[in-house]
């Protein structure tokens, strides 16, 4: 009897505490793969920006010291104990985090995943940085924007069997008719090896003398292609573009081998994840077809798997690459 009483009192007190907590600031935890990674530090910057904009939000930026699922489970358990209002996680493992996150959801905590997803049963929604159609459109747009009169472009992909690249190239081909005068003359595969990508680029330069741009939607390929174009003395004649990381591409943008390239913006990603978490705390429901608010980034529409795409990949060029190179 005494035990029951204590339990009841504890429950009542905790309910009361939760109620007051909700009335005051809302605690949103941004759980990253590991602390100390530039990409996630930048995401935190975006989350803090969102918190400032919203006013009544406190962002708890946390994560394990190494990129392990075990570390993240510990972090999540401690967040449950701290009674946060929402957890936004970039997962080290799709399935391993599910039990811990389920426990959090049972306790009324809103759980979303971003960047690297969690299995559907462990989160209410997942925010992808971009979508395949958006990426496919962006890579051809990057090439076309620098070719007002059209011209020959070629694609340097990863392996012939890599799913991501193949889907992006497929999406790119779909929107190709929208870019008048742009001819995709070849698609070659560098297998995400620096030496093979370099050699394939040399091959492209040889077999297509009128080549104006090379699109490499892979971070190894774009760097190798830029180097091969530089070594062949074709800077200014052939523009290398695609998907890459600012820190890896800064030198090639400076040399002029690459006029611009794209990748998701981690700041926007952290900002949007925080905004969505806030929207869910405020009562919005994550279900297929729902539109969730992301502040300055607009809204995200969820598909039948409760996944949504944030935006177009962000474009980096000579103006901003140095600044982002310091971040990731």
């Amino acid at each position, binding site marked *: 009897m005494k035990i029951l009483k204590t339990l009841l009192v504890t429950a009542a007190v905790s309910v009361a505490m939760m109620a007051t907590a909700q009335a005051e600031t809302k605690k949103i935890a941004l759980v990253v793969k590991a602390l100390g990674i530039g990409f996630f530090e930048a995401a935190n910057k975006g989350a803090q920006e969102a918190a400032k904009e919203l006013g009544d939000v406190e962002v708890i930026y946390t994560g394990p010291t190494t990129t392990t699922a075990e570390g993240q489970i510990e972090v999540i358990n401690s967040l449950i104990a701290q009674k946060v209002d929402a957890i936004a996680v970039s997962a080290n493992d799709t399935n391993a985090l599910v039990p811990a996150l389920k426990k959090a959801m049972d306790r009324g905590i809103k759980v979303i995943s971003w960047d690297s997803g969690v299995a559907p049963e462990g989160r209410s929604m997942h925010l992808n940085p971009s979508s395949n159609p958006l990426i496919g459109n962006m890579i051809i747009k990057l090439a076309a924007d620098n070719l007002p009169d059209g011209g020959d472009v070629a694609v340097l992909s990863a392996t012939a069997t890599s799913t991501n690249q193949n889907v992006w190239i497929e999406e790119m081909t779909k929107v190709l008719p929208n870019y008048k005068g742009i001819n995709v003359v070849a698609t070659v595969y560098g297998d995400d090896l*620096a*030496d*093979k990508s370099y050699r394939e680029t*040399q091959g492209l330069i*040889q*077999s297509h003398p009128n080549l104006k741009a090379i699109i490499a939607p892979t971070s190894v390929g774009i760097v190798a292609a830029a180097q091969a174009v530089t*070594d062949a003395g074709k800077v200014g004649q052939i523009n290398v573009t695609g998907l890459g990381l600012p820190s*890896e591409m*800064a030198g090639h943008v400076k*040399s002029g081998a690459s006029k611009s390239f794209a990748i998701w913006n981690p700041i926007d990603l952290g900002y949007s994840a925080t905004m969505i978490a806030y929207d869910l705390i405020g009562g919005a429901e994550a279900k297929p077809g729902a539109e969730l608010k992301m502040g300055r980034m607009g809204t995200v529409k969820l598909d039948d798997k409760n996944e949504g795409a944030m935006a177009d990949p962000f474009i980096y060029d000579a103006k901003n690459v140095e600044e982002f190179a310091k971040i990731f």
Partner: protein
Amino acid sequence: MKLLLKNREMLLVVAIVALVALIALRFPPFVTPGNLANVYNDTSILIILALGQMAVILTRCIDLSMAANLALSGMVAAMINAAMPGLPIPLVILIVMALGAVLGSINGLLVWKLDIPPIVVTLGTLTIYRGLIFLLSGGAWINAHQMSDAFKALPRTAVLGFPLLSWLSLVIIGIMVVVMRRTPLGRAFFAVGGNPHAAVYTGIDVGRTRFFAYCLSGTLAGLAGYLWVSRYAVAYVDIAAGFELDIIAACVIGGISIAGGIGSVGGAVLGALFLGVIKNALPVINISPFAQMAISGTVIIIAVAVNARAEKRKGRVILRKAEAAHG
């Protein structure tokens, strides 16, 4: 013609010429002198590595860790350069060659002193060296803009119309010819691989010879590490992943017997060139990437088949000579 085909090196030269001619039919610009020089330049690193591997294979061992050694040495070279851009590049090269030698000597010591099968030792060190790169770099890349201009320029510097990288590989070929033909060490490589027991009777320390072979392959891998990172202007954990197979394939195509004791510098160089021509031709003759893999594989199997036949014949020749000498 028969005499011509009997000679392994000549056979390879004929095969390479035929291959180039075949490629020229589909893509004529391939045979311009400028492009052929490019192909040689592109193959230089493979040639240097194949020569190191040759020494190891001659002693009946194998070095699977060469590409990992290359990657680790290359990463260290890039990190030294990024941290101290002022350090003269020749000094950086000497440092990574010494590092490569140390990494190679670890293989050598394990094979020599602990008598562990070479394939197991080098498979282990392959993983260890790759892991070390991750520990050193934390998984981060060293990119073009973090390397000094001098660091990137050295292999590209043109001397008498050819890049320094090409010249460097020619120098290494020259050194290896002298080592293999004119020094006791070179002869010991052949003796140890040809017949280890007989080698012991002639006073050659089999383990020590193998140790030196590994040191040699390690040193060359260290040098290749700098060249690779500087040529492609990027260093990360996975550079040259799987390249050990190319190195061994070059040796096998070049007629270096996996069973040890048979091979030559010329063979290793030609084997590497053969692969180099294929690697450079496949992108321009416009065939599907899946067919490319199949072609590379087929070529290697044909080479091994030819090799096996050549070795059989060679065995008989030696016997006959020995009999003649006795009689």
